[in-house]
């Protein structure tokens, strides 16, 4: 006979405000099998846990139900406490009467009745819980970092410096990401390239970092400590081992006028190219769409001039599999493309601002390239249409961001600061020019940030106009910017030579597809979701996968670097143990009923189901049944749902338990 202890938590007032916890304790105390029930203000606190431990010993409890918050919050806490009191931790279950009850109801009477039922269901379930031994699995002490921007670089360097091997995968031909494109960085105005390129070189030279550029994640299998990642190495058409990076191929390539994405399409590059001179690795890639050799079969000049014979037109995409124990996702951001209205997307576009139609309306990243010493203009701020120096320049903030009617309600966080920086860079380079900024609010929380913003107004003479722009249009070689100054309450019209739009930060294209491969969750904007907004900000809900940088939400460089190091620290915590204890919530096959259709094997996302032969004593094959490898099983229960004969069950969630819960109602 069960001797179940039920512990009802007030959660301060979170639960007790809408649920009569004393009544719940009283009523569930009457249920068959319940030997003890009580309530307490904070069950998760030290005295609360001691109360639980004491009751287990004094009342000789066989099972425990803690009615409190979501099991995602404190299941581990209470299972540990139960274990400390000498009971198997898996004989403890949580009844969620906070998220599922008190938080969502107002009527105390009804909420109390519901809480009694929720607890009653868990009492029925826990009765059928089995003692489960903890499963230990080995940890592969190698990490995968996805994305070679500043976040990925920082995480990879930190992990590698601790002596663990890191595989860094970058989609583009070079690492560096967006930070390599920036001119100067706020709030100190140090040159982005100067602080970035040494780190890129560190990555290239680090004996523990294996760098795969021009590569993408194809497939991810396995689980924490034991992932198998299939990486697609796209055909570079240049052998990385042979290439010396001399650059002769790029000089000789007859195709010269391909807009360079790295320079926001302002500069030109050949068909065989490195995106920028400081690229890591300094190995060119052939853009097969534009290469004459690939289009017509003729040319082949780069191969002829290549001394070491590195150019290889026959190269094909290859798939490689790497075993890793942890994954850091650092895929970064992309800018809102304001002239596009992608079908089915939340984004509505800003067609009225003429981006893509008026050549001198550019986005912030294009301005960075114009201001950069290594950019297409050599650092001179010249407008794209006619190469003249703009004497009146208008910056417009919050393009896409904080615009619910346009589909994005969040603040992109970095635009206020980079626009202030842009006005300064402009003032430093065009002494007789005037910068205007249309803004809604200036958001400058951060060390030395507000001082920096004030400097742009007080010392660098930028004129800030609080209000939004309604329309832009080309008039002769000027762009007329019509807006309102809500501080004064007048309409403003500025004839500008150039307009810079601070477009919103969005996750990289394909962020959702990657998330599906990794099995991590993402929000409606495709930003990756952390496990807990406050207490687990760098971990995904999927164990063993961590987040760094703007793929999780808009971030500036200092925040990104901090998060990358934090993610690295989490990886190192994982790697500090040789074996990993994991929950024994795994599926088991009831072989008597299994008929070997292997639907479970087909649907298992972990590849945990194997085929097992059942033989009699003479060695004759009786049948082939499914076998779940407990080390690999992720406990998702998909096999249980799929099995037509109900011959596979997930411990702790057996059909018997679920039906018992339903029948208790």
């Amino acid at each position, binding site marked *: 006979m069960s001797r179940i202890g039920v512990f009802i938590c007030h959660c301060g007032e979170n639960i007790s405000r809408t649920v009569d916890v004393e009544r719940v304790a009283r009523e569930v105390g009457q249920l068959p099998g319940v030997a003890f029930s009580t309530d307490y203000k904070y069950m998760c606190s030290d005295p609360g846990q001691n109360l639980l431990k004491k009751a287990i010993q004094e009342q000789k409890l066989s099972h425990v139900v803690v009615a409190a918050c979501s099991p995602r919050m404190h299941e581990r806490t209470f299972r540990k406490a139960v274990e400390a009191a000498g009971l198997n931790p898996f004989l403890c279950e949580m009844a969620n009467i906070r998220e599922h009850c008190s938080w969502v109801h107002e009527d105390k009477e009804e909420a109390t009745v519901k809480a009694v039922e929720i607890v009653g269901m868990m009492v029925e379930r826990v009765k059928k819980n089995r003692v489960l031994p903890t499963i230990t699995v080995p940890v592969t002490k190698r990490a995968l970092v996805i994305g070679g921007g500043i976040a990925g670089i920082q995480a990879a360097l930190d992990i590698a410096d601790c002596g663990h091997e890191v595989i860094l995968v970058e989609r583009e031909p070079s690492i560096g990401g967006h930070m390599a494109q920036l001119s100067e960085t706020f709030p100190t105005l140090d040159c982005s390239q100067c602080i970035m390129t040494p780190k890129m070189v560190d990555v290239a030279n680090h004996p523990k970092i294996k760098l795969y550029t021009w590569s993408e994640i194809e497939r991810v299998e396995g689980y924490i400590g034991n992932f198998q990642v299939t990486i697609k190495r796209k055909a570079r058409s240049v052998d990385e081992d042979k290439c010396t990076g001399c650059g002769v191929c790029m000089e000789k390539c007859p195709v010269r006028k391909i807009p360079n994405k790295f320079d926001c399409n302002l500069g030109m590059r050949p068909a065989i190219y490195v995106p920028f001179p400081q690229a890591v690795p300094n190995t060119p890639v052939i853009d097969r769409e534009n290469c004459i050799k690939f289009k017509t079969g003729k040319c082949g000049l780069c191969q002829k001039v290549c001394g070491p014979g590195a150019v290889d037109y026959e190269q094909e995409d290859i798939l490689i599999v790497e075993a890793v124990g942890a994954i850091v996702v650092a895929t970064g951001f992309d800018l809102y493309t304001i002239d596009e209205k992608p079908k089915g997307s939340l984004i509505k576009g800003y067609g009225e601002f003429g981006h893509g139609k008026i050549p001198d309306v550019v986005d912030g990243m294009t301005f960075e390239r114009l201001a950069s010493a290594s950019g297409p203009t050599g650092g001179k701020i010249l407008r794209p249409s006619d190469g003249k120096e703009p004497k009146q320049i208008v910056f417009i903030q919050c393009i896409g961001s904080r615009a619910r009617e346009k589909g994005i309600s969040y603040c992109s966080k970095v635009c206020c600061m980079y626009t202030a920086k842009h006005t300064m860079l402009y003032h430093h380079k065009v002494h007789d020019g005037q910068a205007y900024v249309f803004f809604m609010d200036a958001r400058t929380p951060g060390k030395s940030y507000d001082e920096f913003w004030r400097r742009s107004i007080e010392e660098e003479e930028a004129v800030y106009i609080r209000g939004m722009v309604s329309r832009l249009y080309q008039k002769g070689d000027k762009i007329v910017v019509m807006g309102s100054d809500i501080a004064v309450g007048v309409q403003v019209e500025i004839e500008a030579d150039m307009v810079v739009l601070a477009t919103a930060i969005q996750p990289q294209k394909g962020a959702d597809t990657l998330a599906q491969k990794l099995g991590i969750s993402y929000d409606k904007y495709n930003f990756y979701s952390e496990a807990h907004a406050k207490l687990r900000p760098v971990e995904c809900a999927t164990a063993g996968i961590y987040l760094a940088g703007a793929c999780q939400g808009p971030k500036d460089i200092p925040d990104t670097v901090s998060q990358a190091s934090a993610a690295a620290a989490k990886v190192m915590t994982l790697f500090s143990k040789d074996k990993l204890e994991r929950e024994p919530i795994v599926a088991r096959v009831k072989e008597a*009923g299994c008929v070997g259709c292997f639907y479970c094997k087909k649907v298992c996302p972990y590849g945990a189901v194997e085929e097992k032969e059942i033989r009699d004593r003479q060695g004759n094959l009786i049948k082939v049944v499914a076998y779940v490898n407990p080390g690999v099983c992720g406990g998702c229960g998909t096999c249980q749902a799929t099995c037509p004969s109900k011959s596979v069950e997930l411990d702790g969630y057996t059909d018997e338990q679920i039906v018992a819960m339903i029948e208790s109602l």
Partner: protein
Amino acid sequence: MTQPIDTSIYAAVTEAIRSEAKRILSEGQVSAIVGYAVARRKGSAQPIVISDAADVSKLIFTPACVNNLSVYLTKAKKEIPKNGKIGIVVKGCDLKALVGLMGESQLKREDLFLIGVPCAGVLGSVLQPDTELTSDTIASKCRECGERLPQGCDFVPSVTLPATPEQEQIYAAEIARLEALTPAERWAYWKEQFSKCIKCYACRQVCPFCFCEQCLCDRNKPQMVETTPRPAGNFAWHVIRAMHLAGRCAGCAECERVCPMDIPLNLLNRKMAKELKELYDYEAGFEVNDKGPLASYDDKDDQSFIK
């Protein structure tokens, strides 16, 4: 209007089956052959298993050969390792069940010798087996048949299939009628149909895909489906049956044929097949080792049903 169907091929097919069966049995290629034989009533047919080459004259193929013989193989598969390959006479519709069973690891192609039979159709009802095959007496499934000539078999008699007259598409018409009803009306329709069920489980016994050794309906810990023929249990059984067959059933319609209470069971199966075709462009019974749309996930899958 009643139109006759040319049944002249059946005699030639019977002859061909006999000579091929004689060859493979006497050469020892197979240990036994599952086929059709004359039954007691005039014109009727029944399944038979022969293992002696002397018995091949018992094999026949007529419009009364309605059974899907593949159901015997899920029981007989355990004998294969001991005794060797089994031969089976299959119509195009039955072959689709075999293909499904191979995909579900129940049978291996190399363990079977498939004697495919060209078929002009079978009788809808065998209550009076000695009936002419016409556009009226032909089975509903045969009216929508696209596999009169089975593909990929080890042996198929070479006969020319007669042209088939225009026939009324009974399932398609009935599905369209039910789809036009309101959910409440449809509920009422099926409620009435299922209320007839006596839980004899003949539909389960005859279905090639009900190969579980222990049906979940027979489990009592926990009891998933009420065992007595009462409305709730009847509904649960028939809905579970339809769902378990979705993406698998290729429409041999044996469930409907054997139902003593005349519940239109294949109608449910056809509706599920239609959904699969519309949602995933999938038809069961054509490819072996196919995961099938219900056991696989693709991020391009239609997700509009999630609201």
